[in-house]
């Protein structure tokens, strides 16, 4: 019984790292630009496709493909921001418009990926994806272990970038008080552009890891948006550390629910959590009750 619970806990924690990476870009973009990016999960799928085709065509390991997927998605993110969102920054209906625009982007990207690659389920299959570390009665699938560990490394690098670099400090300042950041000499337009690119690049990086731990197809992103929103809302919208905590917490809970109540209820955990958080503590674990100025 105890080892079975330990097994579930380990699997939950390993997936939690990947969920944290999947959610990090979403919360970063919301923190700086107040854009609820409904297109974030389809960008994860796009990253997964980059890794998939590099693996299929050239035999590139999906972990090694991660920087390539992140770079491709960074360019897509910057282009999207320039073409779609930059003009809206001055709009009085910014929040409503950006939600609609990200929804439209999600629909278009979903359609485009579906037309190009069909909605067939795909997965990359490096050798470690079907192997496991075994410690007595407990096992850890190598794919999940690698994906979880690499996710934590990427998130660590992101936190270091935000806390110890000049541009990262400008991003944090813009998150806390956009007008004040401008008054300190920060070009918030440039910060928004680069941050959007970084957020989408994180989706791409997550996609490369997702490609060997989940099967994926374009329309899968509709399922993920609710999962990612629940993690971000639980942590406090725009709070990166909160999203990471939320990811581990909900992932572990979902793993236990899945084991003891069935896999359908595992996914439902995220949806139910979203409802409960919004009703009981809408500001999330680390959010402020009152919006920062």
């Amino acid at each position: 019984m105890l080892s079975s619970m330990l097994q579930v806990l380990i699997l939950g924690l390993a997936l939690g790292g990947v969920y944290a990476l999947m959610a990090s870009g979403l919360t970063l973009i919301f923190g700086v630009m107040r854009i609820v990016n409904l297109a974030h999960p389809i960008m994860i799928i796009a990253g997964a496709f980059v890794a998939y085709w590099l693996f299929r065509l050239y035999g590139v390991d999906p972990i090694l493909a991660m920087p390539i997927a992140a770079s491709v998605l960074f360019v897509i993110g910057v282009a999207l921001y320039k073409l779609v969102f930059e003009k809206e920054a001055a709009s009085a209906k910014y929040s409503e418009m950006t939600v609609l625009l990200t929804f439209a982007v999600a629909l278009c990207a979903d359609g485009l990926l579906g037309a190009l690659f069909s909605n067939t389920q795909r997965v990359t299959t490096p050798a470690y994806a079907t192997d496991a570390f075994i410690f007595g009665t407990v096992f850890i699938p190598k794919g999940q272990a690698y994906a979880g560990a690499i996710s934590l490394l990427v998130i660590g690098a992101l936190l270091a970038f935000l806390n110890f670099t000049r541009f990262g400090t400008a991003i944090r300042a813009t998150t806390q008080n956009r007008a004040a950041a401008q008054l300190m000499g920060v070009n918030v337009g440039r910060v928004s552009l680069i941050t959007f690119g970084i957020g989408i690049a994180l989706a791409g990086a997550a996609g490369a890891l997702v490609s060997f731990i989940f099967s994926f197809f374009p329309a899968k992103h509709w399922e993920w948006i609710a999962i990612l929103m629940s993690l971000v809302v639980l942590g406090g919208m725009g709070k990166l550390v909160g999203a990471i905590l939320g990811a581990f917490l909900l992932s572990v809970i979902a793993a236990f629910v899945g084991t003891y109540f069935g896999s359908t209820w595992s996914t439902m955990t995220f949806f139910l959590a979203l409802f409960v958080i919004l009703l009981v503590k809408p500001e999330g674990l680390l959010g402020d009750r009152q919006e920062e100025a």
Partner: protein
Amino acid sequence: MHELLEVSNVVAGYGSGPAILNGADLDVAKGEIQCIIGPNGAGKSTLMKAIIGLLPIRSGEIRLLGERIDRLRPDQILQKGIAFVPQERALFPKMSVRENLRMGGYTIRNETELKRRIDDVLDRFPILRERASQHAGTMSGGQQQMLAMARTLIVRPKIVMLDEPSLGLAPMIVKQMFDIMHQLRDSGMTVLLVEQNAVVGLKNANRGTVLDLGRTLFSGPAKDILTDPRVRELYLGKAAA
């Protein structure tokens, strides 16, 4: 010979709403404290936001040392030499005092120079040195105002604009704030101030400008405005008597 800052016939408003500034004029000379007064809704804060570039102007001109700055972004205007402390102080509440000061020097890329300037400012505001590690959002109103002022000094601007610096502060703290403004003026800096408490503002200023309904009614030496019967009647009440 140009004034340091010249605002000519500026019209500005928020979004597509009505104009708040309807042809405002302002001249600010180097090394003075100038106080803008006027009733609520006169456009005092809006004028400052227009000068710093937070609010685009619809027509008119704003010049710093003769150079037009009215199409620049706030970060570019800061680099030209105008710093602004808005009414809400615009601190980063989750950053420490030292981090806020570092943000004040965001445009200074030389780390040694930045550290030296932060040290200079902390010498001027010893209370901030004591609280260097404290989050700005947890400080008292007076300390936050000190930090907001101190932070603008890191870049050694030509003009410091302060919107209602005495708002919500105890009289003793207000006196300290004005003492600091006098020190800044004496060191050659220019201070442009919006003050709801017109008597206190004008008593501490060299020059005053009276705004109403987005227009400049008149400007002149602060002591003359203090005793001007029209101003006293309209804006100051009996307190100035």
